């Protein structure tokens, strides 16, 4: 993985750092404000999530060179010296076509998350401060190119999430928060072990360097005791599974998914939006950036197993979603199902499959975020989410119904909407994989498409159609603030369905490069 030779001049040379750390300035300002100045706090959070969004948009369209797979806007200097002769831990960040769309999505969803939080009555200034800290953590993970830095951001992101769920969540918030925290921490421990082992073997934390070493075949664990072999498994195999599981928990991949429904159901709406919209993507992104290319031969060895896990997630998630009676839990399980496509597409190791997986991450970020906002709208009014407790809401809230229809059909992958492109690319890519066994998996996963349509339409019927529940006959329709939160996401769902090249053109070179790296490993 090469680094771009020329960098933007002047202020722009640190643009990426500005995007990442601006929310932290906002956090500092908020912490200095008096307790009762909530209006100011909201404005400050809006500004300090808005500026990164503007900067990221400018970066996306104005600066980023989409013709190359090289890492761009690289900032690299020593951070922690580890003594003479040792490679120091570096502050090493940059973006490429895989991370840039996710960086942009992060800034967008956090920006939306602020007005979406206005309905949380007991949100104190700590809430908004944590929200901003969360943004720093997430953005940091997406831009880090030094594994140590990556890990630090990974942990930074964890804490605010824990508090946001644990303090402002639903009735079982503490259970859900601890479950989320421990589950992710267990993954982090695995990652840490793998990272340290990699460091000992290679002497570097730099992810691009690790990838180059892996390509050169020098990452074999030779400098570790027993040559890295343990219990009959090779060093790379161990590293692969440690890293994979730590990321799979985040995705989440069956069977590591059970933290997700609890966390989602208990989390307040904006946190669910961020959780589904971005946090899950960290898993998929981690695999693409910091797992597969570092241990490509192990990836090739276990690609089929990953695909099986992906297909189980797709079908199993859809079936379990069909069996839910809680609106939010259903949407949570639909995330499990949709993220299964990401794994399936990546494992197929074809250009369409990999592109589809990267695209699916973005598209799921918009559509599932929209779905959680939709659930939030009805929850704020009815104070429950029991699918069987509604009915006839389309008569009472026609605009809300219209927006929900867009959201639901985007989620079930209707052609013309963004989800279709990514699902079709994933499935077609997986079907044409070099390994013919993938074909059976694809045919099975198509079952998930039907079941997804079934549970969404059934939910639509139970909530919006039928006889209007008298209790809810006084509900106001969706208001301007709620429309403001949803509209950009639904707009993206439609626009990217018609013009997918606004993402694919940016992703293509990096994805092609990645596929090349992984394919070479499978051939030799």
């Amino acid at each position, binding site marked *: 993985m090469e680094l771009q030779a020329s960098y933007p001049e002047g202020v722009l040379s640190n643009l990426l750092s500005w995007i990442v750390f601006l929310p932290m300035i906002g956090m500092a300002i908020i912490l200095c404000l008096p307790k009762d100045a909530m209006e100011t706090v909201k404005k400050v959070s809006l500004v300090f999530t808005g500026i990164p969004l503007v900067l990221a948009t400018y970066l996306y369209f104005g600066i980023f060179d989409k013709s190359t797979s090289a890492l761009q806007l690289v900032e690299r200097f020593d951070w922690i010296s580890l*003594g003479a002769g040792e490679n120091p831990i570096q502050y090493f960040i940059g973006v490429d076509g895989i991370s840039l769309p996710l960086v942009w999505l992060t800034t967008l969803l956090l920006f939306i998350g602020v007005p979406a939080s206005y309905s949380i009555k007991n949100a104190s200034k700590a809430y908004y401060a944590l929200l901003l800290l969360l943004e720093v953590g997430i953005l940091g993970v997406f831009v880090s190119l030094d594994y140590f830095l990556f890990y630090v951001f990974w942990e930074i992101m964890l804490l605010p999430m824990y508090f946001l769920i644990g303090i402002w969540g639903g009735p079982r918030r503490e259970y859900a928060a601890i479950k989320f925290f421990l589950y992710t921490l267990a993954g982090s421990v695995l990652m840490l072990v793998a990272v340290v082992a990699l460091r000992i073997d290679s002497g570097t934390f730099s992810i691009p360097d690790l990838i180059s070493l892996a390509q050169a075949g020098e990452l074999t664990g030779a400098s570790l005791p027993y040559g890295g072999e343990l219990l009959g498994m090779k060093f790379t195999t161990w590293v692969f599974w440690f890293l994979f599981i730590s990321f799979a928990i985040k995705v989440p991949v069956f069977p590591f*998914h059970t933290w997700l429904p609890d966390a989602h159901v208990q989390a307040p709406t904006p946190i669910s939006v961020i959780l589904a919209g971005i946090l899950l993507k960290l898993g998929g992104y981690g695999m693409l950036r910091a797992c597969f290319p570092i241990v490509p031969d192990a990836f090739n060895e276990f690609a089929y197993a990953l695909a099986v896990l992906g297909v189980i997630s797709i079908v199993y998630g859809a079936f379990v979603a*069909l*069996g839910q009676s809680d609106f939010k839990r259903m949407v949570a399980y639909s995330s499990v199902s949709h993220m299964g496509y990401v794994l399936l597409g990546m494992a197929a190791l074809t250009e369409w499959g990999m592109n589809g997986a990267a695209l699916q991450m973005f598209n799921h970020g918009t559509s599932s975020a929209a779905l959680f906002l939709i659930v939030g709208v009805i929850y704020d009014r009815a104070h429950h989410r029991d699918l069987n407790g509604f009915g006839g809401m389309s008569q009472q809230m026609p605009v809300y119904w219209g927006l929900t229809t867009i959201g639901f*059909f985007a989620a079930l992958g209707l052609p013309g909407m963004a989800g279709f492109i990514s699902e079709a690319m994933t499935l077609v890519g997986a079907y044409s994989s070099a390994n013919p066994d993938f074909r059976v998996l694809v045919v099975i996963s198509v079952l998930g498409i*039907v079941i997804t*349509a079934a549970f969404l339409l059934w939910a639509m019927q139970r909530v919006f159609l039928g006889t209007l529940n008298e209790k809810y006959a006084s509900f106001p329709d969706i208001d301007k603030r709620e429309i403001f939160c949803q509209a950009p996401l639904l707009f993206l769902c439609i626009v990217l369905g018609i013009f997918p*090249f606004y993402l*694919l053109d940016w992703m293509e070179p990096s994805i092609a490069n990645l596929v090349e790296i992984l394919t070479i490993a499978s051939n030799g």
Partner: protein
Amino acid sequence: MDFLQFNPEVDFKLLLAVPLIPLVGYVVQIFFGRFLPRKGDWLLTAGMFATMCITVLMAAKAISHGFSSSEPFFHLSKDVGMSFSWFYQEGKDAADPLNMTAGLLYDGLGAAMLAVVGIVSFFVHLFSTGYMKGDKRYHIFFANISLFTVAMLGLVLSDNILFLFVFWEIMGLMSYLLIGHFSHDPSTPFFHRWATWASKKAFLTTRVGDCCLLIGMMMFWQNFQTFQFTELWRLTSEEVARNGGEWPQWMTIAGLFIFGGTVGKSAQFPLHIWLPDAMAGPTPVSAMIHAATMVAAGVFLLGRTFPILSPDVLAIVTATGAVTALFAATIGVTAFDLKAVLAWSTISQLGFMVAAIGTGGIGLVAGLFHMVTHAFFKSCLFLSAGSVIHGCHHEQDMRKMGGLRKRMPLTFLAMGISTLAIAGIPMFSGFYSKDKIIQAAFMKTSLEFSGAQAFACFALPVAAALTAFYMFRMMFMTFAGEYRGDVAEGHGHGHDDHHDDHDHHIVHSEDGGIAGGHPGPVPHESPLPMTLSLLVLATLGFLGGKFWLADLDILAHSKPWFMKLVSPEKMYPGIELMNGYGAQVTDAMLKSTYDSAHTWAMIISLFVASAGIFGAWWIYGPRLRTTGQAVVRWTWTIVCLVLAYLFGVPLVGSLIEGADTLVVVAAWIIGLGLLGYVLMRTTKWIVGVFAGLSRPAPENIADGFGELYVAVANKYYIDEVVDASVIRLSMLASKFLRWFDETIVDGLVLLIGRINRSGGGVSAWFDQKVVDGAVNGVGALTQTFGFIARLFQTGRIQQYASFAVAGGLAVAAWLLLG
């Protein structure tokens, strides 16, 4: 004529406007429709009028080319540089197969279909301005039906199967919204409830088919790396030729999956179950679904993908179509709901089309031809039914109608013409296409006998007889006799209450059927926009098959216009079809069989149509003693006219062969009039003879069939079987997996947590007593685990979390520095 010359440079831009005009209309309407005068209906109707004009002009170009030249009419917009790179703009160049480059494909089939969609859709819009008046969601209705049309127009113009699939699915969404139109309007409780689940059923059932289509597409992509129709045809025929004429197995499987898409969308057995319930939507929507969009899309797909379907697939296609044609026709005989009769007749007619396409060659053309003629007369039938329902104040049960002929003369005229067309009476469009279908089945069977073909030869004529029977049954029950509905009193709403999700399967409870009807004043004729639409579509249903007025060639010895426009050679230029007749069938054999099959098909079609009509009259026709002279004369007027032109017109025509067309037409009118007059004079006598015989009551015949009748009237219990198997299994699976997820998977997680908690205690003890606080790998790790486990108990995560991170960092630091 110069303006009838197709000029790709200009005309493809016009064709691009065809779907774009209503699309822009949709966007305007959905946002601003409610603020516009008349809620914006004029905007979309005018837009659709423009669309129709373009499609008709373009079709005129195609037809004039078809009449003047034997060269194929086949244009790709890519050839003139009009294409759209879908997936990548800069990432990959347009020629890369990974970049889905899409363009327009305009050929004879597309021209005919596009014009049909444009015409039908415009008149449905026009009709709706009257029919939907006063609807709560009037502007949304117009927006949706416009986008529905856009989807079909786009589908017809697509030059690759992925784009076709996109429009295919958008159409599915729009049908979901339109069938569910009343699910947001509680003012008619019955439709409110019905529309709710019928729309879901339609979407999910067709989606099963759609997923099959997707799999089929993937299989072809995996082998050929293309979705382009032209490329798929070429590569398939090359592949088969390379294989020595043998079709690889994967192609048969892929072909079956592609056919699965048709089975879903075109309502073939066993995925037909959505279509009868689709009439929960407003009647204009039914007209669209049953005629120009949705169901036609499946047949159109077969037309586009025919060259890639292996002979084995085609045999299954024929068998499926024949089964569907026959079994749907039997159900149509038992239906009492006016729209249900039409719905089952659609399924049956689609069976005809699909079966014909499966026979290949002339059958392919005949099936597509039937799709076109069917679109005209079925849209007219549905709109007429809408007019009747409108006139009867939302009553749909035919047992509460009757005698509407006088009250709704224009509707009667339109519906009568369309009924004659669907029954397959010569001169009416349906005759020409259906006759060709039966001929194709006969040809295929006599040349290449197979079980599926033989079954089709039996099933299709029987289904044709049943078609004539139930259509005339419908006409008699609706328009003949006396009005049986409630006038201003009685009950219309009484039986709404016991229709729910399940007892809809029992067709029509004892005291009535599908009824949203309410008592009101006597039925009345519909307003002008509605009747005008009916009459235009009826005219097309009359003459849309073959414009025999020009040459009096009523029995179609020369080719109808569609067959000049569309033939296998013209549809797939430059492609050698590998799935037609085998090598042992020579051209001479084809030619001789063609003529004999034509004769036999003609005789049999005429016979079955007359038999069906006679049977319907025999059982349902007006009884002389009860209805009076007027009804008798009316009935026999039709019979006389039929007889008159069957025997009179060819006679007159042959007498003055070689004369000017004008003279011929004049002679025809005079001759027909004379003959009709003579026959009508004898009416009294003929009727007297038949009236003297005792005719059975319909109920007695139904009773005579016993259990069989009950089974048919309950649609062979297919809905119940699907409910009990597929749906129940899915729900069981979802319940089980939910339990599995919450108890087993999550239970394991919690168990590990619990083990860790106790393990944490042990290691904490070990840590203090044995290791004595030394920071080493094992200690740090267990300490971390200890913290993690204790968190479960205390919930005071703040301090422990930082400890855990610190612990992790300490390990890292120690490993690095030490």
